[in-house]
């Protein structure tokens, strides 16, 4: 019950903050622009693609590239970013204030004085941020789905890619909350969270350049696990990787908050 009270309060604080709305408006406008460009490219090449047996369709050329640029980065490098790339910047900006600003306002002790364990405070805040970001994913998906009635969609592949994006958002939020728990100022939390997100996504670049695609560095990289899901393959090992990252980040945030109550 107290977790939901925390979630409700945190969600309310997000709803009244201009930053959350500005980020939502700008990114949705940018994603709408990407959708129009992807659609235009698809329609221009539709006849030629239809002639190729097993060639890419609407799902591969429009729906999934809305979520991530990995399928289009080689072909269309000039297109605006997909949701996955935007999330690397947007999530740190949303999560930076979660605990760092409470510290600045002097409101953090109020949570402890309400008799709430650190784990419930962290979990409540984490859920609020997820509740804000899930509609962002749904609005992005709504764009390609608006044409689903007239086109053949690969629903399984789209569901797998959507799951991948949901897990990525959940992991980035957890990392953001952890950074906010450790940082003394929201800007430091945002920077740390952005850097960690970028490091996780690009950890395997060097290994891939060296021709290694199955090493520990590849396993550590978020891209390895996200790409598989984006390409339509749901593997429990990939899902477990995301769950592990979320659990570790939330445990670190909880531990930091509990230590703060102890230390004062």
């Amino acid at each position, binding site marked *: *019950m*107290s977790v939901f*009270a*925390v979630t*409700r*309060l945190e969600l*309310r*604080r997000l709803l*009244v*903050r201009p930053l959350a709305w500005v980020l939502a408006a700008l990114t949705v406008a940018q994603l709408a622009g990407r959708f129009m460009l992807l659609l235009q490219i698809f329609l221009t090449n539709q006849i030629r693609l239809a002639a190729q047996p097993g060639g890419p369709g609407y799902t591969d050329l429009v729906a999934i590239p809305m979520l991530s640029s990995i399928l289009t980065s080689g072909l269309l490098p000039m297109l605006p970013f997909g949701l996955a790339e935007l999330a690397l910047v947007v999530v740190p900006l949303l999560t930076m204030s979660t605990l760092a600003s409470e510290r600045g*306002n*002097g*409101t953090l*002790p*109020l*949570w*402890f*004085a*309400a*008799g*709430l*364990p650190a784990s419930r405070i962290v979990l409540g805040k984490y859920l609020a941020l997820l509740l804000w970001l899930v509609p962002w994913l749904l609005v992005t998906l709504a764009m390609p789905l608006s044409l689903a009635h007239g086109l053949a969609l690969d629903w399984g592949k789209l569901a797998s890619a959507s799951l991948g994006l949901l897990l990525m958002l959940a992991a980035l939020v957890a990392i953001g909350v952890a950074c906010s728990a450790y940082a003394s100022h929201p800007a430091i939390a945002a920077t740390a969270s952005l850097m960690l997100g970028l490091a996780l996504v690009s950890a395997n670049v060097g290994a891939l350049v060296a021709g290694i695609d199955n090493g520990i560095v590849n396993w550590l990289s978020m891209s390895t696990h996200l790409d598989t899901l984006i390409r339509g393959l749901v593997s429990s090992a990939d899902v477990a990787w995301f769950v592990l990252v979320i659990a570790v980040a939330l445990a670190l945030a909880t531990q930091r908050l509990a230590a703060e*109550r*102890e230390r*004062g």
Partner: protein
Amino acid sequence: MSAPTAVLELVHITRHRAGRPAVADLSLRLDAGQVLGLLGVNGAGKSTTLAMVAGALVPDGGGIRLQGRDFIEHPELARRVVGWLPERAPLWPELTVREHLDAHGRLRGLRAAELAQARARIVERLELGPLARRLAGVLSQGQRQRLGLACALLHQPALLVLDEPANALDPVQVASLRALIREQAAAGTAIILSTHLLAEVTAACDRVAILHEGRLRHDAPVQSEDHKQLEQVFFDIAMRGDGNPARMQAA
């Protein structure tokens, strides 16, 4: 006849801050309906003591009992038993007065009907009606203090912890605060009030405890001491770290 269970018992609590003892070996007892004034110069350990009593800080040693139960073992007791107004009433600047009350009520476990009732009562008592839709970030210092007090009182706690509550209040608001403290005490709430204003203690408290360098140096009923006498004791402790009991006896 057995003694009533104390609302608050501090048993030899100790807390270090920045490598030095902010509170050392402090023991106190507070019964229902009592108002204890905690006096001390800046840095005497008043706010640290109150933060521990409110559950925002854990003591390094000793014990705290709330209504006879171990507060360190059961920090969830703070939820319904304690109401806390920290120094400078920390608020969420982006939320309105009403949203603050709702959030505090939910965090304290009040159900929707209880919350509506409690909110109406406290808004009326503290005259917050005209401010209900105003953002906390634009409130004056006195209004912030009133909102902080409303949040602390919302769930009708058995123990009210007030840290410098008269800060930034005008004389009319101070008189109103004193009346509120007496009213709450008459209803059975135990109140612990930190201040460095002697007049605040003589006007609102039954008992006074003076802290100096984290240690309890004086604990006596207020009725036995007039303002002048209390002032002398306070200065003796503040300047020499000694309450000079002989002078108190003579007075």
